[in-house]
């Protein structure tokens, strides 16, 4: 099953550590600046530096290595494919020649540099984003986004979506299991089995959507009896501590040093 492990991110962001105690706004600002640098600046040293720092930070607060690895794998695999495509197709100075069964394939330096850049950018930005999400609960992130002037409606819907994702997830999985028990997902290697599995999937989706609709009605009623007037996040309940300037400034200095060293 895909999803359940994905949602584990949230459980980890609840753990208490240096980064989770940090103000979400600090983390968001820092992440945006870092991402900007990683994507905007040329070369690959800074990017790799960010990658290493982010991974080390995650390990330092005891985020399971397996989880980090499994999350990194797909984007890095994609990046590696791109890397090789570039090495072979970005023509320029020749780097090496592969001779596979008479078929000559040339690799090029230009492609190698470019491929490394792309790979390093992917690594750096993915690691940075992972650090952010593994250390910031979504609701804190939401309030940081409001503070950063992201339209409130988007954040409100985001938070509702996130909240009810867990509820619908449980319901949907139960329905899926009930279907399984009555052989709704038979061996899908056979055509007839596959057809049945598709049919069951469409039914499951329909049922989850109907649940969502009905729950929206009940939730709306529950909002009404608490005098709902159109605003869901009227007030940042958690008294924001003063923006932790010292964290922000010191991290920005680290980033600046990285940039200077690597460019």
């Amino acid at each position, binding site marked *: 099953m895909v999803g359940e492990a994905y949602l584990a991110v*949230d459980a980890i962001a609840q753990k208490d550590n240096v980064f989770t105690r940090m103000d979400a706004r600090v983390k968001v600002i820092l992440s945006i600046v870092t991402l900007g640098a990683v994507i905007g600046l040329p070369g690959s040293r800074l990017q790799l530096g960010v990658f290493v720092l982010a991974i080390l930070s995650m390990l330092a607060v005891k985020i399971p290595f397996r989880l980090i690895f499994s999350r990194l794998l797909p984007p890095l695999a994609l990046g590696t494919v791109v890397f090789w495509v570039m090495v072979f197709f970005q023509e320029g100075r020749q780097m090496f020649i592969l001779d596979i069964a008479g078929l000559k394939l040339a690799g090029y330096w230009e492609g190698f540099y470019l491929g490394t850049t792309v790979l390093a950018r992917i690594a750096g930005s993915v690691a940075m984003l992972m650090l952010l999400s593994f250390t910031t609960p979504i609701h804190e992130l939401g309030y940081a986004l409001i503070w950063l002037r992201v339209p409130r409606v988007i954040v409100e819907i985001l938070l509702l979506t996130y*909240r009810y994702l867990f509820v619908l997830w449980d319901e949907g999985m139960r329905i899926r299991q009930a279907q399984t028990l009555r052989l709704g997902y038979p061996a899908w290697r056979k055509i007839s089995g596959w057809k049945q599995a598709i049919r069951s999937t469409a039914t499951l989706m329909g049922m989850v959507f109907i649940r969502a609709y009905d729950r929206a009605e*009940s939730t709306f009623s529950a909002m009404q009896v*608490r005098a709902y007037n159109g605003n869901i*996040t009227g007030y940042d309940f*958690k008294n924001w501590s003063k923006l932790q300037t010292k964290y922000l400034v010191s991290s920005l200095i680290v980033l600046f040093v990285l940039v200077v060293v690597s460019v």
Partner: protein
Amino acid sequence: MILEAQQVHYTYHDGTNALQGTDIAIPKGQFVILLGSNGSGKTTLFKVITGLLKPGRGEIRVDGRPIKEYSKEELYRKIGFVFQDPNDQLFAPTVGEDVAFGPVNLKLDSAEVARRVKAALEMVGIPHLLNKPIHYLSYGQKKRASIAGVLAMKPEVIILDEPTAGLDPAGAREIMRLLVKLNKEERITIFMATHDVDLVPLYADRVFVLFKGGILLAGTPQEVFNQKERLRNAQLRLPRVAHLGEILFKKDNLLIDKLPLTIGEARRMVISAVKREGERHAR
């Protein structure tokens, strides 16, 4: 009377007549239970008296004034409604934010909001869960959090739809004790629905029995449970100890003065029966 419904009718879009001339009156400060089988109309009645559904005919009065004259804010400062499924009610990401939702909508200043949130969570016994995301709560904790969300609006009456459904005996007892505390200490009128008849004699000052959208019986638990036949017709039953008392009275000619409703009353009944038998022989 803090709440009154007079000859209320309600029909759903598909033609189901869920309420057919329902009459209730809830005196201030009491603990009132609405007893009814599945589909008898309990939830519909609650939605009508909280203004979520507009009755087809009939009138609702809150604290003596027709409900139509209230503004939303005024109304929901007076009445709180706790839904059966706490997941419907807890839509904010964390407990604290959810409890703050009502007070914020009442346009209270943030210090007052924070104070109310804290007080409400303490009343229901979960102040430590303030910053917990909802999806990490157990069912019983969710139930408490949803009650806190309503308490934070400082209502005069709280309406609860099957507050013990889905809870184990210990969890159900805790919620009922919480409601009794709110009723006795905070003087909040409680009006709750259930189909668990064993709860009624332990907690209710008054009972209404709803059946097919109409009030079949009303009165004290003793009055209501004396109408055994009508209860059974309404798909309900006697509390188990009352059933025992009834059998002993009818089939074994044991003399009892009134139907025992709680374990304490049943105990007294047995003791006095034994004593009487002793006295009969002593004479």
